[in-house]
């Protein structure tokens, strides 16, 4: 039992910061993200056997955090609270960057999620598959769809909203 606890604590130090960022993105505020992080690791301790047998414990923790965040978001929605508070961002120098940011918001949520896990949290294809509990082929396909759509949005100005066409 002490070994398991030490192992979980080591995982916390290793993957905790990334998970905290991930959770903050999902729930909006740091306090809720910290609570969810504690819950994630408490659940990890309860499911230590499953965590040990996972191909990537980090990906398994991401999956658990994702599920807990989804539950918290549903509760927040019921209480009529905002689900996601985007961070204030500086206006980028590159107009294409702003354009791409907007194009990313128009992606399907599952494509967006796969792309964010790959680019922001640097999870491998296998880890994304473990985290979101889908086959690796699905992850690959989602990423391809996302990149293809982003390219189309960048290349084809007609697909963009009128406000953005002037920037290109």
């Amino acid at each position, binding site marked *: *039992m002490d070994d398991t*606890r030490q192992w*979980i*604590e080591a995982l*916390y*130090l290793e993957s*905790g*910061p990334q998970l*905290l*960022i991930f959770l*903050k*993105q999902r729930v909006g505020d*740091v306090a809720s*993200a*910290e609570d969810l*992080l*504690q819950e994630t*690791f*408490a659940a990890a*301790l*309860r499911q230590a056997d499953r965590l040990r047998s996972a191909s990537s414990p980090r990906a398994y923790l991401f999956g658990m955090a994702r599920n807990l965040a989804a539950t918290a978001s549903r509760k927040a929605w019921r209480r009529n609270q905002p689900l996601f508070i985007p*961070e204030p961002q500086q206006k980028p120098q*590159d107009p*294409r*960057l702003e354009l*791409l*940011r907007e194009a*990313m918001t128009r992606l399907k949520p599952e494509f967006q999620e796969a*792309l*964010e896990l*790959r*680019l*922001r949290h640097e999870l*491998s*294809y296998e880890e994304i598959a473990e985290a979101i509990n889908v086959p690796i082929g699905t992850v*690959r396909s989602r*990423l*391809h769809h996302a*990149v*293809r759509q*982003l*390219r189309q949005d*960048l290349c084809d100005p007609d697909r963009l909203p009128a406000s953005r066409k002037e920037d290109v």
Partner: protein
Amino acid sequence: MKQEILERLFMDRALGGLTPDVAALLDAYLEKDPEQSRQFESIDDCVRLAARACPKPPALKLPPLKLVPMPAPRPVRTEFRAGLRILEMAAAFVLGIGLSFWGLRPAGTATMKPQSTFATTVEPSSQSAFWSMNRAINIRSSSESTQSRRVTWETLMHKTQSMN
């Protein structure tokens, strides 16, 4: 190689989803084909831009981990165990009695009472009984043989005439 397959390979290469040996092979291929190389550059540029569009937020201070000690399994109370034992014995007793009653029944006995049967033969006494067919026939034949009673009605006028 089909363009579609190549495009997928380019996307995987740009996203870092290829193994190093496959990536090296693809790079060697692209060096020989400038047209395909341009297309890969376009995809790679899009992915790099997307990576810039979703940068890593600044690291947050990690709070100390507070793992709640798992509660030890509660021991089952001895009184509860004794009660369970008594209950088991009582159930076994009742079941045993029930089974023995069921098993000790004599073989072939019916559980239903025999239904009462109706007599199909007519008793001889019924020949002359009140509701017997014979009696009905006898009454009919006797009435036919005797003269039926005639009902006559005389008016008062007739009566006076006859009196005169």
